[in-house]
């Protein structure tokens, strides 16, 4: 049985469907990339899975409908990393990462009191994995964009949830940090987590993901293995681009090359 199962999920907001008739299964240890042009519904879908938006259809985790799992328990099962990277107060990096343990805190002083050794362990290993341990005393407003992205990822990893949802975690990063973060997500999957990641970089998607879901206007254009999804036709259909698809060390790389006329929804049908 898949860990996460979406059946006919639709998100309807402001009089139109942002995501429509979408089905997806993600198993344990899988890294699934969510790709598609701006406005395709990637973030919407990931928010619906994180129960941040109302949706129709069913989203099940371990066979249980996600919307019926109590919020606190759900927060331990599912870590969500949003696209918005602002941190409101100049909280220290260590305190920020520790927020990932909020769903585990008991008692009245949840989230602010002493943490268990288990919490400490989770926080430290998340910080070491993302290479932010040396930044732990820094205030979050003194971090560079790349550092902040890694700190926020550490916060999400500290939840130690079996399902990790990351919305464009590499958007603000330089090439080296992009690779590092993707390798980190890869490692999380190797260790048994199910990871869904929204990406714009098609080469990263091709290199690191087990499977891809290509969206366009809220609908699935293609879903499955990297080779199947990242074809020239699919890219033209979804993004309206002509791409150079090459191969290096047995893996394909994609270079967006030219703008093609966009194929409208009507023509596709």
């Amino acid at each position, binding site marked *: 049985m898949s860990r996460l199962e979406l059946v006919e999920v639709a998100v309807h907001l402001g009089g139109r469907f942002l995501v429509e008739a979408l089905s997806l299964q993600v198993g344990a240890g899988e890294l699934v990339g969510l790709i598609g042009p701006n406005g395709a519904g990637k973030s919407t879908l990931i928010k619906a899975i994180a129960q941040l938006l109302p949706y129709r259809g069913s989203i099940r985790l371990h066979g249980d409908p996600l919307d019926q799992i109590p919020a606190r328990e759900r927060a331990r099962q599912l870590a969500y990393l949003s696209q*918005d990277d602002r941190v409101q107060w100049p909280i*220290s990096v260590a305190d920020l990462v520790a927020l990932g343990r909020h769903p585990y*805190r008991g008692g009245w002083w949840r989230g602010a009191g002493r943490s268990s050794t288990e919490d400490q362990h989770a926080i430290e290993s998340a910080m070491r994995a993302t290479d932010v341990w040396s930044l732990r005393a820094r205030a979050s407003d003194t971090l560079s964009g790349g550092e902040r992205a890694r700190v926020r990822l550490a*916060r999400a990893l500290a939840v130690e949830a079996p399902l990790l949802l990351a919305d464009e975690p590499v958007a603000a990063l330089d090439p080296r940090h992009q690779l590092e973060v993707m390798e980190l997500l890869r490692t999380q999957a190797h260790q048994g987590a199910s990871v869904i990641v929204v990406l714009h970089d098609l080469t990263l998607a091709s290199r690191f993901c087990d499977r891809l879901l290509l969206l366009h206007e809220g609908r699935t254009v293609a879903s499955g293995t990297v080779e199947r999804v990242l074809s020239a036709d699919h890219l033209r259909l979804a993004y309206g681009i002509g791409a150079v698809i090459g191969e290096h060390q047995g893996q394909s790389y994609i270079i967006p090359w030219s703008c093609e006329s966009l194929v409208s929804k009507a023509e596709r049908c």
Partner: protein
Amino acid sequence: MLNLFLLLTLALLSLLSLGFGEAPLSAGEVIAGLLGIGPETHQVIVREIRLPRVVLAWLVGLSLGASGAALQGLLRNPLAEPGLLGISASASLGAVLTLYFGLALVNPWILPAAAMFCALLATLVLQALTRAGSNNLTLILAGVALSSLAGALTSLALNLAPNPSDAQDIVLWLLGSISDRSFDDIWLCLPFVLLGLTLLLWCAPSLDALALGEAEASSLGIDLGRLRTLIILGSALSVGSTVAVTGAIGFVGLVVPHLLRRFVGFRPGPLLPASALGGAVLVLAADIALRLPETGREPMLGVVTALIGAPFFLALVLRSRRDLL
């Protein structure tokens, strides 16, 4: 550590305030008076004349400090304070209306009751306006609208006041004061203040996660709708009921969280109890300061807190602008 320091300061200032006045008492005499030993006159002065003022300063400060910290954390906005949501303004309006219609003279309980009623009404309106698909921006905008409306109606009452002495009463009440209050006033607002503070403190631990934004905070299991309701209600109860007894006292809710934020590592959760204590310290200190000059007429507390608060606020704005450059 910080809370302990604030508590100690609060205790010292309380002793100072109890000893201060036309008949100066030493710390020993104050404590003896409080415990009910020593000369009868000292007991009366300390327990019946000066203690209500001190207790009221605590209640006002605790309410304003806690609400300010809670609202700034909830709205992720360093400018948020109880006045922003229109709760103070609505409570003021309720009180002003009883003064305008002369009802305050009929029964001393009518004024605070009307103020609390209006604060509650404002809370219900806020809740209704922000219930459906609400977010924090809606809450702020609704609060600003409510605040302006209550302010305009208060001005209208002043404008149409039938005779100058009514207008004078209204103005004096609007300035905010904790002098000449009795334990009757305290019993009136105490239950609501305690209930409000309990709600706010209950919310404190959830505020930290809001630093990550509303979406990630919900993904950590925080029910934002419930948090919003509890904080609005807690602020309305505590601030509304103290405004009902003391009149409007501004800037404390805005300033105190900023003063203390750095000492709690900028975390909104631990800031809340510290800010409550800090609010009490500030109000008590301001109340002692305004009695220092021997001019015969003491300035009103609301005026003094604004005099301290406004320059501080300007300095804060200037500093944050420099940070951006």
